[in-house]
C-alpha cells in the first residue's frame, strides 16, 4: 500500500474511534446536568403527577446505559429517533438546520479564506511597511471585538443608518439563492471579520518563515519580482501550516457560531442545540453533538491529508 494511503486510512480510523469516544462523553455530560427533561418541558407549571407521566412516556425511567446503547444502535442504522420534547423526527429537523449552518459557513468561508490569504501575501510582501501594519492593525482589531459587539455594530450601521439589509437573517426553503445571500449578508460580514485575522496572520508568518530559505534568495537573484517569488516559491512551501489554520477556522464557522446565530435569529444548528440542551432533550443533543464532532474531526483529517500531500518530504518518505 502506498504510504500516503496508509497514513490517510490510519487518520480516518483514528477519527472514527475518537467520534465514538466523543459520543460517550457527550452522553455522560448531559446525564450529569441537573434537572431532567420532564421538569424542563413542563417548567414552572409541572405537577408531580404530570412529571411522572411524562417521564414514563419518554422512557426516562430506564437506566442510562440501556438508553446510550439503544441510541448508538439507532445512529448506526441512520435512525436518530424522535425529539423528546415535541416529537419531531430528529434527522429531518436537523437536516434543514444543518443545511443552513453549512450555507452560512460556506458563504463566510468563500469570502474570508481567499481574502485572508491574499491579505497575508500582501502583508508578507510589504513586511514591516505601512500596508503590513495597516492590514494587521485592522484585522487584529476586528478579531479582538467580541462577536456580538461586531454584530450589533453592523446591525446599527447596515439596517438603521444605511438600511440595505435586514437585522433578522432567517432563511427558508423556497427562497431564491440571491434572496438567501441577501438575508445572510450581515452574519457573513461579522463572521468574516472574526476569522480573518487568524488566517491572515498565519499566512503572513508562514510565508515570512519560508522567505528566510536559501532557494528564495536564488529566486530573487535570478530576477523574479517579489510577488512572483512569494507566489511561485514561498507560498507552495507554506501551504501546510496555512491549511491547518484555514481548516480550524472553517470548523469554527460550522460549530462555533451560536452567538452570531442568536443575534441574527439565524435558524441553524447552534441555536437548535442550545434550545434542546435547555430542555434536556438528550437524543437531539447527542445527535447534534456527534454531527459537530464529526465535522470537526473530518475537517482536521482533511487538513492532515492536505499537509501530507502538499509536503514532498511526507509524500516521498525515505
Amino acid at each position, binding site marked *: 500500500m502506498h504510504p500516503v494511503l496508509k497514513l490517510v486510512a490510519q487518520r480516518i480510523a483514528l477519527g472514527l474511534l475518537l467520534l465514538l469516544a466523543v459520543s460517550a462523553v457527550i452522553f455522560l455530560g448531559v446525564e450529569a446536568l441537573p434537572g431532567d427533561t420532564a421538569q424542563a418541558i413542563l417548567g414552572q407549571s409541572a405537577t408531580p403527577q404530570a412529571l411522572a*407521566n*411524562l417521564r414514563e412516556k419518554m422512557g426516562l425511567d430506564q437506566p442510562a446505559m440501556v438508553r446510550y446503547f439503544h441510541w448508538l444502535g439507532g445512529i448506526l442504522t441512520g435512525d436518530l429517533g424522535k425529539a423528546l420534547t415535541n*416529537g419531531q423526527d430528529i434527522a429531518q429537523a436537523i437536516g434543514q438546520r444543518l443545511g443552513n449552518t453549512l450555507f452560512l459557513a460556506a458563504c463566510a468561508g468563500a469570502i474570508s479564506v481567499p481574502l485572508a490569504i491574499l491579505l497575508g501575501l500582501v502583508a508578507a510582501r510589504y513586511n514591516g511597511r505601512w500596508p503590513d501594519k495597516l492590514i494587521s492593525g485592522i484585522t487584529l482589531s476586528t478579531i479582538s471585538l467580541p462577536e456580538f459587539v461586531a454584530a450589533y455594530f453592523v446591525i446599527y450601521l447596515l439596517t438603521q443608518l444605511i438600511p440595505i439589509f435586514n437585522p433578522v437573517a432567517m432563511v427558508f426553503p423556497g427562497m431564491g439563492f440571491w434572496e438567501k445571500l441577501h438575508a445572510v449578508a450581515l452574519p457573513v460580514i461579522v463572521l468574516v471579520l472574526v476569522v480573518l485575522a487568524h488566517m491572515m496572520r498565519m499566512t503572513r508568518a508562514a510565508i515570512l518563515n519560508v522567505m528566510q530559505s536559501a532557494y528564495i534568495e536564488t529566486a530573487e537573484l535570478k530576477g523574479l519580482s517579489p510577488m512572483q517569488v512569494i507566489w511561485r516559491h514561498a507560498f507552495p512551501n507554506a501551504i501546510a501550516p496555512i491549511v491547518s489554520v484555514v481548516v480550524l477556522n472553517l470548523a469554527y464557522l460550522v460549530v462555533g457560531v451560536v452567538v452570531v446565530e*442568536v443575534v441574527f435569529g439565524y435558524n441553524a444548528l447552534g441555536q437548535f442545540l442550545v*434550545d434542546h440542551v435547555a430542555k434536556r432533550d438528550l437524543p437531539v443533543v447527542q445527535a447534534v453533538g456527534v454531527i459537530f464532532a464529526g465535522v470537526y474531526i473530518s475537517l482536521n483529517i482533511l487538513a492532515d491529508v492536505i499537509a501530507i500531500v502538499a509536503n514532498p518530504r511526507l509524500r516521498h518518505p525515505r
Partner: protein
Amino acid sequence: MSEQFDRIVMQMRQGGMTRREFVGRATALGVSTALASAIFTKGARAEEAKKGGVIRVGMSGGESTNSLDPALAASEVPFQVNMTWGEMLTDVKPDGTLDMRIAEEVSSTPDASEWKFKIRKGVEYHNGATVTAEDVVATLKRHTDEKSQSGALGVVKGIAEMKAEGDMVTLKLSEANADLPYLMADYHLIIQPGGGVDNPTAAIGAGPYKVNVNEPGVRHTFTKHANYFDSTMGHADEVEILVINDNTARTAALQSGQVHMINRVDPKIVELLKGVPGVSIKAVAGRGHYVFIMHCDKAPFDNNDVRMALKLAINRDEMVQKILGGLGSVGNDFPINSAYPLFDDSIPQRTFDAAKAGELYKKSGHDGSPIILRTAPGAFPGAVEAAQLFAASAQSAGIPLEVKLEPDDGYWSNVWNVEPFCASYWGGRPVQDQMYSTAYLSTAEWNDTKFKNAKFDELLLAARGELDAAKRKSEYSEMANILRDEGGLILPMFNDFVSGVSDTIGGWQDDPNGELMNGRAQVRCWLNS
C-alpha cells in the same frame, strides 16, 4: 391648543386611548365633555379596519422544542401561535367581560354547579368540518386525561360530568364554580375536531388563520381561513410570527420595518425608543407580577414576624422605578390588582418601613445568621438586580439578607418550589378564584409559599360558588387581607406588558389579559397603507 388637540385625536384614532382617557384629556384642553365624547365616537368609527397585507410579529419566548399541541403551550410564542389558529369556548374582553366565541350562550343552575354552553351554529374548522358539541366534550375530556400533560388540567379537573346533546354542552361540576365561563377561556382549551385526540398537533381549529409553515423556534406562517365565523377579526391576508429571542435584533427588526410588532421591549430602552419615528411603545398594565416567595413551613420563615419584617423591608417604589423603568405598579403582597374583577381598592398599601421591620425582626428572635435569598437572571427580567436592591434595603433595617445567585439552567426544578426563599414570577389569571386556587389554596399543587390557612381555604371555596357579587367581593377582600398579613408572598410589583408597535398598525387596544392584546394582536389589528 389646536395642535395639542390634534395630537390626542390622532392618538385616539390609533386606538391608544379609551373614551374616558380621551374625554379627560380633551376637556383639560377646554373642549366640552359632550363635544369630546362625540368626537371620540366619530373618530373611533372613522377608523375602519383595512383588509389585506401580511402582518409580521417578532417575538421572544419561542424555542425549537415548541409543539402545536395546545395542551402543551407554556411560553409566549406557542400562546400567540395558538391564538392565531384556534378558538376557545369563550374569551375575556379587554374590559374583563366575557366574550362568547365557540359558545354563543352560557347559563347555569342557581347554585353554579351545572353549566350549559350553547354551541354557535355553523362554525367551520380549517378542514371544512363543522364544530359540534361532541368536539367540545372530546376536547375537554382530552385535557382532563392526565396523560395529555395539559397545562389546563387544574382547570378542567373540577368537571365531574360532561354531556353533549344537539348543540348544547352540559358540564356538571364536583364543586360549584361561578367562574366556569371564564375558566373555559384558558388558552390551552382550544376546541379541536374530535378533541384533537388522534393528532393533537394537527393545528386544525376554528380560528381566523390556518397554519401554513410551522418551524418551531424560527417562524410560523398563516393564511386566512376564508370561512371564519367572526368578521370583526382576521383582517390581514397572512400572518407571520418570527421568533427573535435577542432583544437588540428584535428591536432593530421593528425599527427597520421587518416586523410590525414586537413583544417584551426591554424597559431599559423604552425611553430611547420613544424618540424613534414610526414606532410607538405600548405599556399595558396587566395581572402579571414579580415575587419573592418564602416557604411558610420552613425556618426562619415559619415565624410570621420574620415574614412581616421582610415584607416591610422591601422598597416597592424603588423596585418599580429601577427594575421596571416605571412601567408597572407597586404590589401589596397579595396577587390581585385592579385588573381583576371584584378587586377591593380600599386595602391599605404596604410601604417601606425600615424602623418597624427592624423592630419585628428583633422581636422574632432570629439568631442573626444570614437569610439567603436565591435568584437567577431568568427568574424574571431584572431578578438579580431586584434581589440586590431588596438585600440593601433589608440590611438598612438590620435584617441580614444575602443574595445567592443561581444559574438559569435548572432554576425551576432545583430552586423554585425547593429552596425556602427565592425570586419568581406569575403571569396572572383571568379571575381571582383561579389565581388563588392555583397557588394559595392549602392543597394547591403549585402552592409555592406552602401557605396553609383553614379560614382562607374556607373563604375561597365559599366565594367560588357565590353568585352574589357584593358578597363575593367582601370574601375576596378578606382573603386578600389574610394573605397580605400572614402569607409567604412578597409581591413588590406588577409588571406592565411592554410591546413595540409600528404606526402602520391600526386597531391596537390595550388588553390587560395578556401580552400583545392577549395573544390576538395579529388577529384583531390591521395594516394601514
